[in-house]
């Protein structure tokens, strides 16, 4: 664990930032620390966190998944349609939709790893196609309400703890095992660091890349299913905000956008930071436009503090200062 922390200083920073944010928020809106508010913050963060799990894997592998919004939305819409408000069909609907999300991921991954289509293009295309399909399919008619079981999973509690927080925790443990304790994790970091070196080292690079997109498709679908329970219905456009938030959560969590390092443990902090921030900004009485500006600026700032250029600038500045002190340079 010691080496984990020293190798992932940015993750530690993300958690420190999160704590600071909690303090600031508690200062501006004292109600923030109430149990019910903490609980709802956690529930909202869980959605971001779950959906960002796949994005984390994809980004570590050197790609990016822009198809998340409509994979999520498709899963939500299809779930409500197929279940028609009943719990029983969930037995087959949920596995089917997870598999469907995985299949989209498989296609994304195959396009990227086998055909060499740039990830941005491949996943953006998948996103648009899914959007079109869902529009055609539903014809804009409203869908039935979410089954009670799904509502329980997303907003219910077991002895006071939100069920979704338990789901998120389980997924976090799983992600940690995969990234830190499995051969797949090693392969993934290798592919993201240098795919040629990985290939020469016998890493199944194609399979590894494809798998990241499969995971991402599955977590997006899961996120869509659960989110329906939160909002009560599926609606078109419900996944749109998740593109930015997942990428931002990964970035705030310290993973470089070019891949090769980072960890889901960081993304967890990222998801919490983003959610707390969304709660804090209204408390500052900003207009919704100004809110977005602040939101974007804060993310930009957080991410750039961790970036390499910034730390280089910092290092060279402190070097210079040192030298001026020593008197070997004037000015």
């Amino acid at each position, binding site marked *: 664990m010691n080496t984990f922390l020293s190798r992932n200083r940015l993750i530690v920073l993300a958690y420190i930032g999160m704590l600071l944010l909690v303090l600031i928020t508690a200062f501006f809106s004292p109600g923030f620390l109430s149990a019910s508010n903490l609980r709802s913050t956690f529930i909202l963060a869980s959605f971001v966190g779950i959906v960002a799990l796949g994005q984390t894997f994809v980004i570590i592998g050197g790609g990016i998944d822009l198809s998340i919004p409509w994979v999520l939305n498709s899963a939500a819409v299809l779930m409500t349609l197929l279940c028609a408000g009943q719990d029983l069909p969930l037995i087959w609907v949920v596995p089917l939709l997870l598999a469907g999300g995985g299949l989209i991921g498989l296609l994304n991954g195959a396009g990227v790893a086998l055909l060499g289509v740039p990830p941005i293009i491949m996943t953006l295309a998948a996103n648009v196609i899914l959007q079109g399909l869902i529009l055609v399919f539903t014809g804009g008619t409203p869908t039935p309400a979410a089954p009670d079981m799904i509502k329980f999973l997303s907003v219910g509690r077991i002895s006071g703890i939100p069920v979704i927080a338990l789901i998120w925790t389980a997924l976090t443990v799983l992600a940690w095992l995969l990234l830190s*304790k*499995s*051969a797949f994790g090693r*392969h993934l970091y290798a592919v993201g660091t*240098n795919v040629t070196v990985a290939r*020469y*080292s016998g890493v199944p690079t194609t399979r590894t890349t494809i798998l990241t997109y499969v995971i991402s498709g599955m977590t997006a679908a899961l996120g869509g299913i659960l989110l329906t329970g939160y909002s009560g219905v599926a609606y078109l456009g419900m996944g749109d905000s998740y593109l930015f938030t997942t990428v931002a959560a990964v970035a705030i969590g310290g993973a470089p956008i070019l891949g090769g390092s980072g960890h889901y443990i960081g993304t967890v902090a990222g998801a919490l930071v983003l959610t707390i921030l969304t709660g804090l900004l209204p408390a500052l009485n900003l207009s919704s436009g100004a809110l977005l500006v602040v939101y974007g600026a804060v993310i930009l700032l957080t991410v750039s503090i961790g970036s390499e250029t910034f730390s280089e600038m910092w290092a060279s500045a402190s070097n210079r200062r040192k*030298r001026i002190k020593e008197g070997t340079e004037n000015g």
Partner: protein
Amino acid sequence: MDIVQVKGLTKRFGGIVALDGADFSARLGEVHALLGENGAGKSTFIQILSGALNHDGGDILVDGQDYRPVNPDEALGRGIAAVFQELSLVPDLSVEQNIWFRREPRTWLRTVDVSQMRQQTLELFERYHFPSIATTREVRNLTLAERQIVEVAKGLAKNPRILILDEATSALPASEATWLLSLARQLADEGRLVIFISHRMGEVRAIADRVSVFRNGSTVATHDAAAVSDDQIVTEMIGRQLARLYPERMDTATDRVALQVRDFSSPPMLNGVNFDLREGEVLGVGGLQGHGQREMFQSLFGADKALGSVTLWGKPVCFDTPRQALSGSEGIALVPEDRRGQGLLLTKSVRENLSLPVIRRFSHLGLLNQRKEAELVRETMKSLSIKADTPEQIAGTLSGGNQQKVIFGKMLMTQARVLLLYDPTRGVDVGTKGEIFQLMRQLASEGYAILFYSSDLPELVNVADRVMVLRSGRVARMLEGDDITEEEILRAAVFDSEAA
């Protein structure tokens, strides 16, 4: 007066002491060789001298004046340019664009004056007799050797008073290496100072006027090259006497064929190669550069495609990927040409690099047994004496030679018994070279079969049991026994042997 004078130079990277009070002094008009083990601090020293790194303590005087450059441009302002060990060209730019990078000749509109730039490149190439490389080619399409040559051109284009060459010959085949040596001589005769780093004693002997020896970050001694013996230098370098560089010849080859290759082709570079590599044999591969050696190694390993039949331990195989080649103990492993581009994850630890090819072997019920991994990694590091602070040191911060050893270690960990070694001693110090040759011999006697390419002819002559010389993608000649000499290898590489 000496143009460069260095006193008590120190440099630390975190807890690692790279330079520990190094002294150095050199004058214009000489070729000054810098020798030392892998990790002795040579590259760190010249990076400081050329403004790529800051030093922690000590003084540098250039022209008798205090010198502490913040960046390479400032160093160049004082007339110092370096060709670094790790190449730094931009792959997407052409040869000439790289050579004049950030210093392009301009037209009055401030646009790049392309014809002027070409003119200058050709003049530079002609003045210093550069091997021919089309100036408009993209660097990404060049071989490692060609890139190295462009790197030298880039350094020279700055017209420095002091040119530093850090292992610039290590990636070059014999003829180009010879050219670079005479170039260094020519530059010194023009009144410049050339600081020359190499692990090849022969090269140092051929051109150096003086020799400085580094060990563990400080200077052991500076000698007039004429007044010191090889043995003494080597002893100063490694702190003990080197019994012998090349291992004793032992015929450990059996009759069993480990790797049978027939009609192996991938035109235009490979045009039907046939050979048998036997169990227990070290089969050398020679020839002029660019006659199919690289393609042969790549294709046998499954990294490139080729036609023909390959039989491994009696079983026909066809590898589409390196993963297939590496799988199992019946596999083939490769030490690739390009250390940074193919061999190492530079930003990952030594441990992660070493265990990457075999990581699945540590997996039990889906989880890694990290204790077992650490144990095997430690063993490998020890058996190759890889000089790293801990297994967690980032591979990119190791000295060049130690990076090469990590790649060697990766391959050994796979337990594949047919080894393809493409220039495995590039940038490795004499002491370690000796160890690597020893290891190759030992592996051979344990039943490994080794295909061994080297850009250093004496290595082929002294280590290989047989040497096959490639010309135009075919085996021009298979040299055995007393026929294995530098002259014969060169002759076979250049002339048609049957006609001669």
